[in-house]
């Protein structure tokens, strides 16, 4: 029986033996509970990571195959990062998700995965390739008209041999296309040789969250094929967490051939700043507005590691001023997941998701920061939501917004994610 056969009770010890490396099977657990004490999902549905292991050891396969906790665990791997025995519960959670009957899985996640399968665009919001191309062209036209400084800005699509191929989270083209412009401006500013791909451009993978490994693989294959066809040297993942992880991990997990390097946009922000191509500074922050960052689990702990966290801090400190940056504790690879990942945001379990996110909310509040910066759409939405829910006064913002703000090229209609305190700061001069 495969780990993702539907509607079946899994033998979790066997699954663990198959999935986990030698010496890190559940049998190695010393029961210390470091995983459970640092897991924001502990206590939801009576579960925590240690309990998951112990229940597997006790043969409680039916209970583990049916507990809704597997949808409240965001598979953030904080437990695996801290485990002294190297045990990774998240992989077993993935297997458990996969064993749920499709009709019983959270509908939001299932629908998003189904939408992704509709078209080679792989968009969870159902945007077809031709829609995407049309929206990009229209948005670009508006930019050319409204911001004469960028009248010559180009947004290449399917440009074979471009150095970088960059993906795009569906939220912008589908809901707020004007939010694409800041990134285009940055790429234009540094003179990047880049392109979108009309196929597989979407930066999200809900199929991975459904636990359906085959569907995850299909998504990654479509995207890898599209990028291989463009013969780009480097794939840059936009400001999004899991869209990086899904491909970065998927290539290895499924043994795919990728003729490109997988990189994060944050890495390039940092590089372009160091090279002087992106001359940002904190001169605009005269009021000493305070900022903190949320390290996306998918980008830091689960994939690139602390180097990604260092780059993120370098970019943010340069943008806001060292003295205006306040770190969350814990942070970097030990950061708590916000509760927006793993499909939790789309799983229709709002009260559990907010109970999970309370830990993140408390962390943010403890920094006393006015803004939370995060290069991840799920983090962004979740931190914003728990802020509203628990009465926080902070604002959540993308990096591209702040970069363009610092460069004086952030237009008035690109300030949706800034608070009133920054609405009029560093506006582009009228031409």
């Amino acid at each position: 029986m495969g780990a993702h056969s539907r509607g079946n009770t899994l033998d979790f010890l066997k699954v663990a033996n198959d999935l986990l490396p030698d010496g890190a099977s559940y049998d190695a657990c010393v029961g210390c509970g470091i995983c459970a004490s640092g897991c924001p999902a502990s206590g939801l549905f009576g579960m925590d990571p240690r309990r998951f292991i112990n229940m597997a050891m006790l043969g409680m396969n039916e209970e583990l195959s049916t507990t809704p906790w597997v949808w409240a665990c965001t598979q953030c791997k904080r437990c695996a990062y801290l485990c002294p025995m190297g045990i990774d519960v998240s992989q077993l959670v993935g297997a458990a998700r996969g064993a749920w009957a499709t009709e019983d899985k959270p509908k939001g996640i299932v629908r998003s995965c189904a939408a992704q399968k509709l078209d080679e665009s792989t968009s969870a919001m159902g945007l077809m390739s031709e829609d995407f191309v049309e929206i990009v062209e229209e948005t670009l036209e508006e930019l050319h008209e409204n911001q004469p400084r960028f009248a010559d800005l180009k947004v290449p699509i399917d440009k074979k041999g471009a150095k970088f191929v960059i993906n795009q989270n569906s939220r912008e083209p589908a809901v707020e296309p004007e939010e694409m412009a800041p990134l285009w401006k940055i790429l234009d500013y540094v003179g990047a040789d880049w392109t979108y791909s009309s196929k597989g451009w979407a930066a999200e993978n809900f199929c991975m969250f459904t636990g359906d490994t085959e569907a995850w693989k299909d998504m990654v294959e479509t995207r890898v094929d599209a990028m291989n066809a463009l013969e780009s040297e480097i794939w840059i993942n936009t400001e999004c967490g899991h869209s990086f992880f899904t491909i970065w991990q998927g290539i290895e997990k499924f043994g795919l051939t990728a003729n490109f390097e997988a990189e994060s946009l944050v890495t390039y922000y940092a590089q372009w700043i160091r090279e002087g191509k992106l001359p940002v500074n904190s001169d605009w922050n005269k009021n000493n507005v305070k900022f903190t960052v949320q390290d996306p689990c998918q980008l830091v702990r689960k994939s690139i590691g602390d180097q990604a966290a260092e780059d993120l801090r370098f970019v943010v400190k340069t943008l806001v001023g060292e003295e205006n940056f306040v770190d969350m504790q814990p942070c970097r690879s030990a950061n708590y997941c916000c509760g927006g990942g793993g499909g939790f945001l789309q799983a229709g379990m709002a009260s559990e998701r907010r109970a999970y996110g309370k830990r993140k909310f408390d962390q943010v509040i403890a920094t006393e920061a006015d803004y939370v910066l995060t290069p991840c759409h799920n983090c962004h939405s979740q931190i914003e939501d728990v802020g509203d829910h628990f009465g926080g006064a902070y604002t959540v913002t993308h990096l591209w917004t702040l970069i363009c703000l610092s460069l004086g090229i952030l237009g008035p209609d690109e300030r949706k994610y800034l608070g009133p305190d920054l609405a009029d700061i560093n506006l582009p001069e009228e031409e």
Partner: protein
Amino acid sequence: MSVRIYEADVLVIGGGATGSGVMRDLALRGINCILIDRKDLNAGASGGNHGLLHSGGRYATADAETAAECRHEGDILKRLAPECIDDCGGLFVAVDGDDEAFAAKFPEHCRVAGIPCEALSAAEAREREPALPEAILAAYAVPDATIDPFRIVLENVGHAERLNDSSYLPHMEIEGFEIIDGTVAKALCRDRRSGEAVEIRALQFINASGAWAEKVARLAGCSDVSLLYSKGTLLISNTRVTNGVVNRLRLPDDGDILVPGGTVSLLGTSSVTVDDPDGIAPTVPEVDRILAEGAAMLPVLNETRFVRAFSGVRPLLKSAGSEADGRKANRGFALFDHEDQGLSNFATVAGGKFTTFRLMAEKAGDLVAARLGNAEPCKTNLEPLPSGDALRWTEPGAAARDWYKRADPTDMVLCECEMVARSAVDTILADAPGAEDHMSLKAIALRSRIGKGACQGAFCSMRVTSHLYDRGVYDSPDGLRQMRDFVNERYKGIRPVLWGAQMPQTELAEILHCGLAGMDLAAAEEGADSK
């Protein structure tokens, strides 16, 4: 100094399978008993065994009578106490290097003893037990099963208590008997915890004290009980290794039998003749040898995590040639009426197997009933063993499933490995045999899975102790001393299996108990006080 006095129709000495079996047997005949134990239930061989409900296959070759008894008794227990039994089946397997001629005779020996025995091909055997090696010379399926020795003893006592107010007194040591004109009038005991002198008056006295039966008989002036003490050591794995029982098909030797125990497996046993049944502990050489022998039959045991070793002493009846080798001793049992020793109301039942405890109890019960003029027949072969709510926590996974099903967020889990919740501990405090007595951490562990998981008490010893203080069971520093004794006792079993994952596990326990709780310093202080 005042003496506490108890009275009953019958005093049963020894809280193991036989003693608890006698207690229930007599209660079913309407006879009121007091059961006592020097320690607590299953403190001897009844707690120190495989939990194997023998089909009889193990004795088919050497001892057809015991083999047939095992088969017959096994069938009765499977029928009447199914909640204590996992009818998982068993295999007898000869592997490379074993005597093929010996193996070939096995089916015929089983036939003579009346034990169903089915020959399997190597492929069929591996289909049943994928952990078996490629090279299998012979394999036979027999109706072996496993029994929870703690549950069945708890249920025996619990049922007797409910039937006719028979009662159980733990920590009650026999120091002597008052005998008047060939009749035992009372047992002179001491409560080992309070130090109080206790007298138990009864009409009949049954000595069912297992490996201590010879000593107890001598206290009554009887010199006819002669036992051989055979120490056996077993290893407990962290997970269940096989689906059913796997026996090595050869003359009994170390590491021959792997028995599932719910979520774990038990591998053993050694057989070492010892002079005294007290103070035994598993040793590293025994463990090494058991493991080497076991791995020849099931190579997976080389990679298996073992959490603990423990030892028991088989009380064997001496017979010719058995002094040098306990394996040659008779595994049958004997009932001594001691009439030729000049006593009319004292009897000893000794020897036998866990599997045949009910039959031993029946024979003892028949004698006592006849002596009391009670004409009720034995009913333990007909009456199903009921299940008590406070007595079901020794089954691996039972507490975990109960807790998960009730989904009560206020019911804190005290033992994480085995997921024993506060509510389960509270039912034990309220209703388990011995509850009217002081129920310590050790007593709760005996009646549940506390301390038996991978952490071997590292966490749960502290959590349960805290809970017992919360509940007012402990109200002095004695609770902390009991916790330390409990942890030390567990360590005796952990020490011989300290490799692999159990090493970091034990280091973690040391950090908690010594680094954090300072339990080692408390021990030193106490030692300084007493000197």
